[in-house]
């Protein structure tokens, strides 16, 4: 199973980013082999609106079934839900690395996101 984590920089030991749509990048890791690869999100960061929508599409296209982030807005939530991606959140104040976040998820320590955690930003 693939797990996507929003990160500040492309790397396994980099800090998690708590924004979803305009995250710097996504680190997508294979849950079994722990092999990871980073997916840039540069284009979405500069989107005038709907960044979360396209970020969600990226996550689905990467084949991830789990997303770990901080906050997910209403439009991204709708797309991720439609794509059967389960969403989990870390405490924005906790300053976790990607590796920590994945370990926390494996141990069932992360809260599952059942509804958008923030209001939409675009308009």
């Amino acid at each position, binding site marked *: 199973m693939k797990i996507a984590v929003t990160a500040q920089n492309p790397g396994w030991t980099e800090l998690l980013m708590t924004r979803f749509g305009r995250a710097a990048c996504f680190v997508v890791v294979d849950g079994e082999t722990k092999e990871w690869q980073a997916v840039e999100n540069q284009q979405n960061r500069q989107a005038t609106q*709907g*960044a979360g929508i396209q970020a969600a599409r990226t996550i689905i296209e990467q084949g991830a079934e789990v997303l770990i982030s901080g906050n997910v807005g209403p439009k991204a939530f709708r797309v991720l839900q439609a794509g059967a991606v389960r969403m989990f959140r870390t405490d924005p104040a906790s300053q976790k690395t990607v590796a920590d976040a994945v370990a926390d998820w494996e141990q069932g320590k992360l809260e599952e996101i059942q509804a958008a955690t923030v209001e939409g930003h675009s308009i």
Partner: protein
Amino acid sequence: MKIAFASGKGGTGKTTVAVNVAYILQQCGADVQLIDCDVEEPNAHLFLPHRIERTIPATVKRPVAAEDHCTGCGVCADYCEFNAITVFKNTVIIFPELCHGCGVCAWFCPERIITETDRPIGVIEGAMAKGIRFLQGRLNIGEVMAPPMIRQVKEQAQAAAVTLIDCPPGNSCPLIEAVRGVDLVILVSEPTPFGLYDLSLTVASLKELGLPAGVVVNRCNIGNDELYLFCHQENIPILAEIPHDRRIAESYSRGGLISEDLPEYRGLFASLWKNVLALIAGKGGQRPTDRGGTAA
């Protein structure tokens, strides 16, 4: 002749000046049309008793996808500038509130499964009010697409000797759409740091558009001289100065017209209009006064 009333900052008196100029011109026997393009919160109607005579729906295009025939190629989502459509695994999700109705998704869909329907976003209302041909746009609550609404309101305008356009505040797309095609922009401002800052942004926008402008200083006896200095430096004529007068506020709060309730102000609006005509004729209005005496 088409004249717009803009300001940058909200609440400086755009509508007050627009309705009073309309009234004065109508009193002089001119064929006047007033269009309220502040479609998110039109308020000129509050000062002009009227009965709506025609109502026209305003719409934007909304894409609809026949999902069963979608191959999931994602061309629509890749081309959408506004991220209003997304596709994955043959699932199409459309966000109408983000859609600008440009039609690029329908145009480029290789399977031709996207069609467009009209989505209502508001109404355009027309009436006669105090002898003025009045038109306004009202965007539905929750809608954010002011520019297409403003465009459609302006399309309903009739030929008139003078068309006055009350613009929305701010300097973004709605203002640009409202001032498109006018001969002159009357900038209603107040001599405060906030008023000046927002005015300077509007002046910069109008320069880009190549539109001439003049300034009406509202509540001219408050604040400081910076606004006058700015107008002097930018070579923007002052068309009129309206004093901070309690009676004006009282008339306004009752939905009255200053030029009707306080006849002594009629001359002010008449001379404002004279300055507008002079400016359009290329003779310039009244030059900025020397009140900003602190200039180096």
